């Protein structure tokens, strides 16, 4: 519990007043001569039980009355997040909202999502606490702190609305740290509203150490985490695994593979779910039987107009507790070749990669690779290239800018170390020196199997990463998110922490002298094709992108399509890239969807959160969708009632017992009557 006027707590010793009065009364007794001592002694013997208890109760009630009144003056607040506040109002409040898709999980009865409830609670708490602090909302997607006038603005600001993108809580805390350092904000409270999903927090990211260290140097910064870690009771998640346009015999069809996952209390029952398809405005429905946790529909064919070269579609499930994973948008056009360019002058490096990249896994698309030596980089056709594999000295400034633009379009780059690492860097990352392991090589100690290049396959099978051995490696150093580590904790596969696109660093070669990546080809094959798949989404006239990513920003320049009346709402153009939907025109379409990692968002255990904030002043409040109680409601009325009840009880206890009609009293009364007569 905390108090708006905590100074009055110093008045709490006043509850001892009844005891003092009692003691003074005991000392101020008078002395009288008395004859009937036998009755007095008898009464004293008898009164050691209930009567004494009654006296103590009366005293306790009196103390309670005083305590209640003092608490009323101190204006207590109900416990909750701010239960940790021990006095002192902040000069600045920084609000960090996890606007990821998983925060759209809602309570079906009220339609209130985790994000909405969290915003309301924070706004209400800030209003109640008062003190007029500066309120700053950190926009995780523009990395800009936005100063707001009133806590209620949190509810309506575009930068506080839900998105289908992934959040990066670490990046937002980094922005917060910079803001505090730049503006010398004084005593600062940082409020974080999140569901503690691992993919939004990325606890394995090396950035956290710097964040923790940065905040440790500051004084007067407190963190409050509204933790909506509770998972929804029941949920269906839809994921399109394939949508191909097939032209044959003058007919055109869309072939769709989809998967439905369900979780919660429905997992035991067998049932049929209506799946709605909307292809360029034409609707159809398919009943999908689901038994167990997943159901898959493969090869569902929907005829389309052969003349339709570019189109869009939306597949949808009925509304449930997690609306963000109920729909999937897609755009289709004529397939384009999927080209991989390998920049190297070492055949042993490009051999395995080229083989993997030119192997078609989709019969409707053409796959091929091209090897370019470092001195002929200028020949690369950046527009048509999907994946760039760079095994050479890190690019010079001009080439680096070209590669940055390349990844901003949604393409993928993977760097491998040169034979002699130089001083060059890319996106703040540079190569260390080569080092060798023994003949048996080093196995993997850790790899991220939830998302990224080494994630499990769609059917849940793990890649044989544990079979990999690295004989020579060269670690990348810089602002990186580690995806795989060797046994000596050296990162072997990392992703650059740049917001502009997908850049990987692989610290070895797929050659027999450096690793068995080429010999145990499954993992390398999967990695290459996953990179191609990521990049392919941004190729051609129909792009399939992930909301919130840099390539998705192309949608900000395009109009949103209102797919159905009252359906997908098109937000401000600057936020198009954050919302799932179809954007574009007849020539170019961009379909934005949530990051599928949000569907399987694993909640970080409390210990992991503790590790991130170790050494910092932080407090976690576990929230639930069903808990509408405000964080900081004033509860002085409760103490008024308490004091009133105590007062009433004291009065009842003090009431003299019903007088017994004694003979002597009756006689006295009779005499008085006679005298009066």
């Amino acid at each position, binding site marked *: 519990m905390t108090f708006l006027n905590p100074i009055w707590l110093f008045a709490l010793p006043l509850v001892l007043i009844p005891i003092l009065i009692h003691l003074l009364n005991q000392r101020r007794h008078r002395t009288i001569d008395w*004859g009937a*001592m*036998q009755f007095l002694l008898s009464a*004293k013997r008898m009164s050691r039980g209930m009567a004494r208890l009654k006296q103590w109760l009366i005293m306790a009630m009196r103390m309670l009355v005083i305590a209640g009144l003092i608490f009323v003056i101190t204006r207590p607040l109900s416990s909750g997040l701010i239960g940790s506040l021990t006095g002192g109002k902040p000069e600045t409040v920084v609000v960090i909202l996890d606007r990821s898709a998983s925060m759209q999980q809602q309570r079906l009865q009220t339609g209130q999502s985790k994000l909405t409830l969290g915003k309301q609670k924070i706004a209400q708490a800030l209003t109640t606490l008062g003190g007029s602090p500066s309120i700053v909302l950190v926009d995780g997607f523009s990395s800009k702190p936005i100063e707001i006038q009133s806590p209620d603005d949190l509810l309506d600001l575009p930068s506080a609305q839900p998105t289908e993108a992934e959040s990066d809580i670490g990046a937002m805390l980094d922005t917060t740290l910079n803001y505090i350092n730049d503006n010398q904000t004084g005593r600062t409270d940082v409020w974080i509203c999140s569901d503690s999903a691992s993919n939004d927090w990325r606890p394995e990211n090396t950035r956290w150490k710097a964040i923790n260290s940065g905040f440790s140097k500051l004084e007067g910064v407190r963190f409050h985490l509204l933790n909506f870690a509770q998972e929804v009771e029941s949920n269906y998640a839809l994921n399109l695994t394939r949508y191909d346009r097939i032209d044959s015999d003058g007919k055109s069809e869309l072939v769709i593979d989809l998967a439905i996952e369900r979780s919660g209390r429905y997992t035991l029952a067998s049932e049929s779910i209506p799946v709605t398809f909307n292809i360029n405005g034409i609707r159809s429905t398919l009943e999908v039987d689901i038994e167990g946790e997943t159901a898959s529909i493969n090869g569902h064919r929907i005829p389309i107009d052969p003349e339709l070269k570019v189109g869009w579609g939306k597949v949808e499930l009925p509304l449930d507790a997690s609306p963000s994973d109920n729909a999937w948008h897609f755009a289709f056009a004529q397939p384009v070749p999927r080209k991989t360019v390998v920049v190297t002058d070492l055949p042993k490096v490009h051999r395995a990669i080229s083989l993997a990249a030119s192997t078609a896994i989709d019969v409707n698309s053409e796959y091929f690779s091209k090897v370019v030596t470092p001195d002929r980089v200028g020949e690369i056709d950046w527009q048509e290239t999907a994946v760039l594999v760079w095994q050479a000295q890190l690019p010079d400034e001009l080439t680096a800018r070209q590669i940055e633009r390349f990844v901003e379009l949604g393409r993928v780059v993977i760097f491998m170390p040169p034979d002699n690492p130089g001083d060059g860097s890319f996106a703040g990352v540079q190569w260390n020196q080569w080092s060798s392991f023994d003949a048996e090589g080093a196995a993997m100690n850790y790899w991220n199997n939830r998302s990224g290049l080494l994630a499990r396959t769609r059917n849940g099978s793990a890649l044989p990463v544990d079979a990999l051995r690295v004989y020579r490696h060269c670690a990348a150093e810089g602002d990186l998110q580690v995806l795989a580590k060797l046994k000596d904790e050296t990162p072997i596969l990392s992703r650059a922490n740049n917001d502009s696109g997908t850049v990987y660093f692989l610290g070895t070669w797929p050659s027999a002298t450096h690793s068995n990546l080429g010999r145990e080809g499954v993992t390398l094959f999967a990695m290459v094709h996953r990179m191609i798949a990521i990049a392919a989404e941004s190729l051609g006239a129909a792009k399939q992108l992930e909301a919130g990513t840099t390539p998705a920003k192309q949608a900000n320049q395009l109009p949103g399509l209102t797919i159905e009346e009252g359906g997908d709402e098109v937000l401000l153009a600057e936020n198009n890239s954050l919302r799932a939907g179809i954007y574009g025109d007849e020539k170019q379409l961009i379909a934005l969807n949530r990051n599928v990692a949000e569907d399987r968002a694993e909640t970080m255990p409390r210990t992991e959160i503790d590790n991130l904030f170790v050494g910092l002043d932080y407090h976690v409040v576990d929230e639930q969708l069903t808990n509408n109680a405000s964080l900081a409601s004033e509860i002085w009325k409760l103490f008024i009632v308490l004091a009133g009840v105590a007062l009433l009880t004291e009065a009842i206890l003090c009431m003299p017992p019903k007088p017994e009609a004694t003979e002597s009293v009756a006689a006295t009364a009779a005499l008085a009557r006679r005298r009066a007569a």
Partner: protein
Amino acid sequence: MHSFIEPRVIARLKALPFHARLPMLGSVSGMHRSPHRGSSLEFAEYRKYVPGDDTRRLDWRAYGRSDRYYIKEFEADTNLRLCLIMDTSGSMNYGAGDQSKLNFAKQLCGTLAYLAAQQGDAIGLYCAGEKFDKQISPKRSSSHLKTILDELESVEAKGETGLVAALHEAAERIRQRALVIIVSDLFVEPRELSDCFQHLRFRNHDAVVFHVMEQKEIDFDFDRPIRFRDLEGGAPVLADPSIVAGDYRKAMQQYLTDLQAVMRDAAVDYQRVGLEKHYGDVLAKFLLERAPKRK
């Protein structure tokens, strides 16, 4: 004149006769019924003549009507022995304002002694304090009345009560049947008193008890913690009336109930009097209750 004798009260009570309930054995003629037949004007009964009876008392009219000899008998009136037993234990010093229980007892005893002396009864006084040492045997003379009043004037209340022993001793010492009037606050266990009164009753005494109490002793209506100093010399007691008052009243009520039962069983004329009453009223009521009912 003694301070506890008020001529106004004496004048008021003089008109009321002072009777014993039981027949008394007096030495001279008086106002009280005797167990023996006598020569008063009040007819008692007829009985058959037996040889040796005084022929002067034969009822010749009855002989004329029935041809049998009957003796006509009349009641005998005699005087009584009034034994006043006054409790002089320390607790009798308690009172309200200027009136203490001891003073009230003196007023009762002094006035009764005066009234009894006026109608020719013998008066004795026994003071039951810690010891039963002040004893004045009953005599009927005006100088004896002065002795008793002087003794009442000088007596003081102190020490623990020795009432139980005093009553047993009095029951033994007073040989002839007498009217025994006890004035006390009776702060003794009722069952102990029961034995005393049965003893008095066994000796054919007509026992009267004036139970003198102050109203505060019954109601215990104090409002602040008080140190109670024992008038009979015991250890003082500090008590908070708000805690003990209820239990005190319960104990007092139980005591009064038990006491009444004891008095009823021993056929004692029990009069509970409070200090708020005037002793004149108390005595007037007492004498009126004892006056013989006219047929």
